[in-house]
């Protein structure tokens, strides 16, 4: 277990180093994700203990955003002043993004499925 926890931390660490060394526009943890993914591709499988550690993180992912979310208190005044445009922009844009992404994905998956003739689930 500790070995795989170390491995996950090491992926992030190498990701942070690569980000700085190569001036990449992506954050270290995302590069770390790519590294771990590449490792799994090479190994062709997920070791059981790595799955235990990783899935523990992922099943509690929401909790990890709470401290950053509380940072809203730093900007309460500014957000209050601009409450209407900010609310409309956030809600409108988030819904538009979800709708556009899902519609394009659905349309293109259908086209691919038609080509591949065997439809995936649902």
């Amino acid at each position, binding site marked *: 277990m500790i070995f795989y926890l170390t491995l*996950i931390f090491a992926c*992030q660490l190498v*990701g942070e180093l690569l980000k700085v060394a190569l001036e990449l*526009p*992506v*954050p*270290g*943890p*995302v590069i*770390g*994700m*790519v*590294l*771990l993914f590449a490792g*799994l*591709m090479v190994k062709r499988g*997920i070791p059981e203990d*790595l*799955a235990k550690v990783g*899935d523990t*993180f*992922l099943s509690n*992912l929401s*909790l*990890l*955003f*709470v*401290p*950053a*979310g*509380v*940072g*809203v208190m*730093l*900007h309460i005044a500014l957000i209050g002043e*601009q409450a209407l*445009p*900010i609310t*409309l*922009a*956030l809600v*409108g*844009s*988030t819904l*538009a*993004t*979800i709708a*556009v*992404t*899902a*519609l*394009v*994905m*659905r349309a*293109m*998956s259908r086209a*691919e499925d038609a080509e*591949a003739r065997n439809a*995936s*689930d649902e």
Partner: protein
Amino acid sequence: MNKDFSEIWVYLSASPLLALTLTLAAYQLGNWVYQKAGKNPLLNPVFIAVVALVATLLVTGTDYAAYFEGAQFVHFLLGPATVALALPLYRQIERVRKSALAISVSLLAGSLTATATAVGIAWAFGSSQEILISLAPKSVTAPVAMGIAEQLGGLPSLTAVLVILTGIIGAALGPLLLNVMGVKDMAARGLAIGTASHGIGTARAFQVSEVAGAFAGLAMGLNALVTAILLPLLWRWVF
């Protein structure tokens, strides 16, 4: 507050344990309310926890920096958790490979929509340039979004807040919108929520299905990459 109590509070506030315990307790409260309300997506656990904590800090006169001293231990785990997103992605590799083109095109469409509509709406309502820049990367995972905002001359700390709010809005309203639209495919649902509302959307998607979670995580990573590259270029071109 009476004198004894405030002395105890001052003592406890100096140790990270209080902020850490409060954070976990507030999240438990959020989860409890969410479960009690029949998993109503509008009662997002992160949203409830944040409201409870902000109220507590304001009432007790604790500032955010003092709170974060303790809460940073939870915050820190975001990094390794992001690395762990490689697992569900690997488990879905066949589906991802099969739909690579569909994923790329929908992601690009979603990414451009996210920035264009956020900036467009706020601009139409007369927001300042500073707010527009801070809003532009709002669908991207926080560390990348903050970097983009800083590069373009926005307020990184405001961006962080807007990113979190976007995540909560997407996690709360996204599933309802997708139900209304009749999108049942978990891959499309995950991809849409991950593109629009990054890690908070991804966390929410995982609660529903492993497939949706994997696609949301993939969308979050790709959207960070696409926006970090395209937004600075587009911004200079438009303004």
